[in-house]
C-alpha cells in the first residue's frame, strides 16, 4: 500500500475548516489526479490512511493471511505444531483421490446440495407465492414463525433436532410410541442410511423461511396489473406462477442458487459437526467437516488444507456453472 496516498474529496470546496490531528505535513503534494475538476485538499492522504489502516490491517491479518496459508499449506505435509514442514507438491491432492472417506464426504455434500436446494427452493417459492398472491389471514404471523429458525444458532438447531430425533424420547419416536406405531420408529441419527436425510431435514427446516422472505421480496415488486390482465385472459393461478412469477423473479432465483451452494458447503458442516459429528462411521461426513477432522483432530494439517482448496474450487466452479447455465435476458415488467 502506498505510504500516503494523495486523495481528494470530490466536489468539496477548497475552503475547509481547521484540520484536526496530525494531518499537516504528509500528503501535501498530490501526484495523482483525483475526481476530475475537484479541487485537491492538503493532508487528505493521512486522513485516508488513518481511516483505512485499522480495517485493512485486521482484514489482512485475519482473512488474507489465513486464506493464503490454506493454499500454501496444501502443498506441504505439516502436523500444524511441529517445526517439521515438508514440501510435497501435489501429493496431498493425489492422495485425496484414493481416500474413500473423502469421496464419501464429497458425495454427501453433493447429495445435500441437490436435495436441500430442490426441496427448499420448491417449498420456498410455493410459500412465497401464496403469501404474496393470496391474502392469507395472519400471514405476518406465518412470516414471523417461518423466519424464526434463521435467527437461531446452528448449535440450537442441532440441539433441537437431536431432541426431535432422539432414539428413545424424541419428538418423533416418542410420538410414534404414544400412537403404538413402534414399527415406524427409526434410529434417525444412528442409522447409516438415514442420518443424511435427517441432516437434510434440519437444513431445510433452518433455511426455508430465509428463502421464502427473499422470494417474497422479489415477487412483491411484480406489478399487480400483469396478473389482472392474465386473469382476464383466463390464466389459472398455477399458469400465472409459471408464466409470470417465475420468469420475473429469475434474477432473484439465480442469486439464491449461489447461496444454496454456499450453505450446502458451510451450513452442512456446522450442523453436522454439532449434530452427528460426522457419524455414524463417517456416513454423515461432509467436505468441511472432513477437512476439520484431518487438520485439527488428525493433525494432518497440509492434507486438511488440500481438502479446503478442493472445496473452495468446487463451490466456486458449481456457482459459476449454475450462474452460466441459468443466464437469461432480464425481463421487463
Amino acid at each position: 500500500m502506498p505510504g500516503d496516498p494523495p486523495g481528494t474529496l470530490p466536489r468539496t470546496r477548497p475552503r475547509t475548516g481547521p484540520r484536526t490531528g496530525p494531518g499537516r505535513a504528509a500528503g501535501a503534494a498530490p501526484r495523482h489526479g483525483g475526481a476530475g475538476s475537484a479541487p485537491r485538499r492538503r493532508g487528505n492522504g493521512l486522513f485516508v490512511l488513518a481511516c483505512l489502516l485499522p480495517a485493512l490491517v485486521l482484514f489482512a491479518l485475519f482473512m488474507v493471511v489465513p486464506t493464503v496459508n490454506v493454499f500454501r499449506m496444501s502443498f506441504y505435509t505439516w502436523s500444524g505444531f511441529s517445526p517439521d514442514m515438508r514440501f510435497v507438491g501435489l501429493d496431498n491432492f493425489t492422495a485425496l483421490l484414493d481416500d474413500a472417506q473423502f469421496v464419501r464426504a464429497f458425495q454427501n455434500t453433493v447429495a445435500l446440495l441437490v436435495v436441500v436446494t430442490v426441496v427448499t427452493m420448491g417449498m420456498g417459492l410455493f410459500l412465497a407465492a401464496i403469501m404474496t398472491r393470496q391474502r392469507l389471514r395472519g400471514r405476518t404471523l406465518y412470516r414471523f414463525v417461518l423466519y424464526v429458525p434463521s435467527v437461531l444458532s446452528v448449535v440450537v438447531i442441532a440441539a433441537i433436532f437431536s431432541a426431535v430425533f432422539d432414539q428413545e424420547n424424541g419428538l418423533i419416536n416418542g410420538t410414534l410410541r404414544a400412537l403404538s406405531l413402534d414399527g415406524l420408529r427409526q434410529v434417525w441419527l444412528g442409522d447409516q442410511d438415514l442420518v443424511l436425510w435427517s441432516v437434510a431435514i434440519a437444513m431445510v427446516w433452518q433455511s426455508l423461511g430465509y428463502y421464502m422472505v427473499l422470494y417474497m421480496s422479489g415477487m412483491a415488486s411484480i406489478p399487480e396489473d400483469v396478473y389482472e390482465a392474465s386473469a382476464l385472459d383466463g390464466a389459472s393461478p398455477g399458469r400465472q406462477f409459471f408464466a409470470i412469477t417465475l420468469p420475473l423473479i429469475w434474477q432473484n432465483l439465480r442469486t439464491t442458487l449461489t447461496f444454496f451452494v454456499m450453505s450446502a458447503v458451510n451450513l452442512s458442516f456446522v450442523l453436522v459437526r454439532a449434530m452427528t459429528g460426522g457419524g455414524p462411521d463417517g456416513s454423515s461426513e461432509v467436505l468441511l467437516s472432513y477437512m476439520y477432522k484431518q487438520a485439527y483432530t488428525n493433525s494432518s494439517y497440509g492434507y486438511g488444507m488440500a481438502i479446503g482448496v478442493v472445496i473452495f474450487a468446487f463451490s466456486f466452479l458449481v456457482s459459476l456453472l449454475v450462474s452460466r447455465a441459468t443466464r437469461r435476458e432480464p425481463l421487463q415488467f
Partner: protein
Amino acid sequence: MTTIRSAARPRTGRALTSVLVIAIALAIAVPVAWVLLASLKQKGEFYGSPWVLPEGLHLQNYVDAFVTARMGRYFLTSVLVTVLGLVFVVAVSVPAAYVVARYEFRGRGLVEIALLAGLFVNVNYIVVPIFLMLVGWDRALVDVFPGGFFIDNPAVLSLVYAATSIPFTIYLLTAYFRSIPVDFEEAAALDGASRFQIMTRVMLPMARPALTTVLLFNFLAYWNDYIIALTLLPGEGKTLQVGLLNLMTAQKAAADYGRLYAGMVIVIVPVLIFYALIQRRLIEGMASGGVKG
C-alpha cells in the same frame, strides 16, 4: 388486489393451500415450543408421551443449567465478546467505508476488489490457519506472556469476529454512504467542520439505517457463532454456544434432558426476544441487502 383471482379460484384449492401453509408453520413452531415446554419437566416426565404438558414448573433444570453447567457464566462471556466485536467492527469499518465511498486515492480500486473478494471467503475455511497463527504468536511471546495471550482471550476472539465481518460491513456501509448526496458534507465543510467531524457528526447519523442493519446481522453472527469460539477459546471461558454444545455431549452420556433443554431455552430466549422486537427491520434489511446469514 386479489379480488379477480380469488373469484376465479376454486374455494377448495384455496383452503388446501392455507392448510399446507399452516402445516409448514406448525412444523417450524412445534419443535421450538416443545423444547420450551420440556425444559420445565422433571426427569421422569421425559419418558412418557412427548405431547404431555409438564406437571409443574420444574425450575430446578434452570438452576442446574445456570449454575452447575455454568451457562450463566458463559452467557456473560458471550455478551462481552459480542459487544466488543460490534464495537471493533464499527470502529474500523465506518471510517474505512466512508473514505472508500467519498475519497479518491491511489489503490482504491485494489482495496475495493480485495474487500469484495473477502465476501466470498467463508470463516469455516480459515479457522484452523487462524488458530495456528495465534498459537504461533503465543509461542513467540512466551517470555512476555508465559500463560499465553492470544488463545483463550475473549478480546482476541472479538477481534477475529470483527475482522471476518469487515468485508460485509464495509460493503453495505459504502453503498449507503454513496447514496447520500454530497451537499451535506459541502455545507458542513463551509461551516468549518473538519474532515473527521464531517464523518462522525454529519455522515454517521445519516447512515443510521445502514448501521442498524449491519449491527443486527453482525450481532446475530457473533452471538450465534460456535466454530470460531470453539477453536479460539478452548479453556474455561466458553461462550454460550460452546457451552450448549458441551451440554449436548454430556446429555448423550447421562440422559439428563432437563438440564439440556433448560440450557437451550437460555440460548434461544434472548434471540427470540431480540427477533420479536426488530423482526420487521431484520427481514426488510435482509430482503434489500440480499445478505446470506
